[in-house]
C-alpha cells in the first residue's frame, strides 16, 4: 500500500475511528489524540501491512491498543472504585455513553464496534481476534447490562 492509498483509506475510516475512540475514552480531546496516534503508527508501520484487504482491521486494532493504553493511564489517575465491574442496576442511572464506558473492556469493545462503529459480528470477532461465538456472547451480555434491545439489522447498519 502506498502512502497515497493510505491517505485515501484513512480519510474513509477516520470518522469511524473517532467514533470508536470517543465512546471508548469518553472525551473529544482524548479521542482525537488516540486517532492521531493511530494514524501516525499506521503510517510508520505501513511496510508491515502485507495484506491491504485487512487494512481496516489492522488500523482499528492499533486504535483499540491506543485506547486501552489511555484507559490504563486514566485508571492510574482515577480512584479504583470508578472501574469496579458494574451490574445492570448500577448502569441504569448513567447516561448510555457513560454506561458503555463503565462496562468491562471486553464487553465495551464489542458493543462499540458492533453498534456504533458499524462492524458486523464476524468483523468484530476478527478485529478482536476472538471466535465469533465469544463475540456473540459478549454482545449479548453487554446489551443485557445496558438494557438495550437492538436487533441485528441495527447493528449491521
Amino acid at each position: 500500500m502506498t502512502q497515497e492509498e493510505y491517505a485515501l483509506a484513512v480519510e474513509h475510516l477516520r470518522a469511524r475511528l473517532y467514533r470508536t475512540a470517543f465512546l471508548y475514552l469518553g472525551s473529544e480531546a482524548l479521542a482525537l489524540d488516540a486517532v492521531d496516534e493511530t494514524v501516525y503508527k499506521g503510517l510508520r508501520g505501513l511496510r508491515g501491512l502485507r495484506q491491504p484487504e485487512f487494512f481496516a482491521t489492522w488500523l482499528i486494532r492499533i486504535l483499540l491498543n491506543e485506547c486501552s493504553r489511555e484507559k490504563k493511564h486514566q485508571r492510574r489517575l482515577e480512584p479504583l472504585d470508578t472501574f469496579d465491574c458494574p451490574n445492570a442496576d448500577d448502569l441504569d442511572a448513567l447516561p448510555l455513553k457513560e454506561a458503555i464506558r463503565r462496562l468491562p473492556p471486553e464487553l465495551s469493545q464489542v458493543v462499540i464496534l458492533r453498534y456504533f462503529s458499524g462492524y458486523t459480528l464476524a468483523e468484530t470477532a476478527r478485529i478482536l481476534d476472538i471466535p465469533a461465538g465469544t463475540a456473540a456472547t459478549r454482545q449479548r451480555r453487554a446489551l443485557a447490562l445496558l438494557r438495550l434491545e437492538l436487533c441485528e439489522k441495527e447493528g449491521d447498519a
Partner: protein
Amino acid sequence: MNRNEEYSALLRELEDTPPALEKTLPRARARLRRRRVLQPAASLAGLACCFVLLVNFCAPVAYACSRVPLLRELAAAVTFSPSLSRAVDNEYVQPLELTQTQCGITAQVEYLLVDQKQVNIFYRLDTESGGQLREEPRILSLDDSSPAPCSYGLNSWDVPNGQLRSMTVDFVAEDVPDALLLELDVWQDPEEDAPTLTEEGPADQQVGEDVWLELPPDPEPLTTFRFELHFDPTFTASGRQIELGETLTLDGQTFTFTQLEIYPTHLRLDLEESEENTAWLTQLYFTVEGGGQVYQPISNGVTATGSGETHTMTSYRAESPYFEKADSLTIRITGAEWLDKSHERTLVDLAGGKADFLPEGVSFYEAKQVGSGWKVSFLARQRKESYVHQIFRTEYYDPEGNQMEYHSWSSGGLPMDAPDDSFLVTLYLEDYPYDQVWLCPQYSRQWQAPEAICFTVDLTQ
C-alpha cells in the same frame, strides 16, 4: 427517554466529528518527518540520560547504599506468589551480580530465592536498540551440561526490557544441587508495536476447517547467555519434613497422608493410595490452616505431581507457612477429583457422533473430518468463571490399540445456544483414518465432602 431512544440520539450526536479530525493525516506526516530528523539527537540525549541513571541507580551502587529499593522491586516481581512474597519480606534472598553483554543485549542475573526443592531466578534483559526481548531458558547440570533433573518455566511473558523477569526451577524427587547452569536463548522482536498481519491473514483465519495449525519454526536465537548459578548452602538446606501417617477415607477411597514438607517457597502434602481403591485421585481440594492464616493450594506453576505409575497425584503443593510461627497446622480437605479406574479410556464414535462415557459436565458436541484427520469438539462446564480446563489426556488410541498423541487442543467458539458457563474444547486428531477413537479422560467426576475432613500436624516435635 428510554435506552433505545438514547441510543438513537447518541448515534446522531456521533455523526458530527470535530474539525480537527480532518488534519489527523497531515499531523501524522509532519510527526514522521520530525522523527526522522530528531532521531540522532534523541539518541545522544538518551545516552547522556542513561549515564546519569547508571551513576545514580546502577544496581551495585544502589545495593551498596541501601538494599531497600532493590528488595522493593523484587517484592513487586513476586506478587504472583504469596510464599515468595513472604520470603522477600523476610529478606530470604540470595543476591547475585552476574552480568553479560552479547550482540548489544545485556543479561543480568540479580537474585535467587532458593531452598531444598526449588530455585526462583530473577534477571533482566535489556538492549539500547529497542525491540522487545524474549527468552527461552534451559537448566543444565554444571558438571556435564546435561539436562538437570527438574522442570522449569518462565513466570511471566512480555516483561518490558530492563524490568525484572523471573523463572521457577522445580525439583521433585531430588534436592537442589550446589550449582546449576542457566542458558538463556534470546530473541529480539521488531520494534514496531503496531499489530501486523501475516501472509495468511488474522489468527482466527489461520485455523480453518481444512488446514491444521502448523506454527512456523522459531528463528535461531540472536544470542545465548550462559550463567553459572552457585547456591548458598544455607538456602539449599532450608526446609523441613514432618512424618504424618494419617489414613483417611475420602468418598470411599483410602489414602495415607505420609509427609508434610515445608519449604520457604512452597509446601508439599504427600500421600499414598490404597491398591483397593476404585478410582485414582487426580486432584485434591484442601487448605492448610495455622497461626491464624489460611494457606491455599498453589495455582501457578506446579500444583501437584505423581509417580507416573498410576494416574493418582501423590504430592500436592500449597503456599508455605515456613516464615510463620505456628505450633500446629490443620489440613482441611474439602473435596477431590477422581478418575474411575473403569473409565480410564472412553470410546468415541466419530462418525456416529456419540461417546460411551464422558466426564461429569461434559457432552459430545461434534466431530468433523478435516483433511486426513478429525476435529472433535466437546462442551464442558466451567468450574470457575472464564476458566477452562483440560478434559482429556493428550494420548489416545485407535481401534487397533495403537497409542498416538494429539499436539493441539483449543477452547473457544462457544455455540450461540450453549450455556454461558460452558466452554467448547476441540481436539485435533491429525492423520487419523478411523471413525472411532479411544480418548483418555483426565477425570471422571468431582466430589465435595459434605463436611471438611481435617487432621492436625504438630510442628513442635
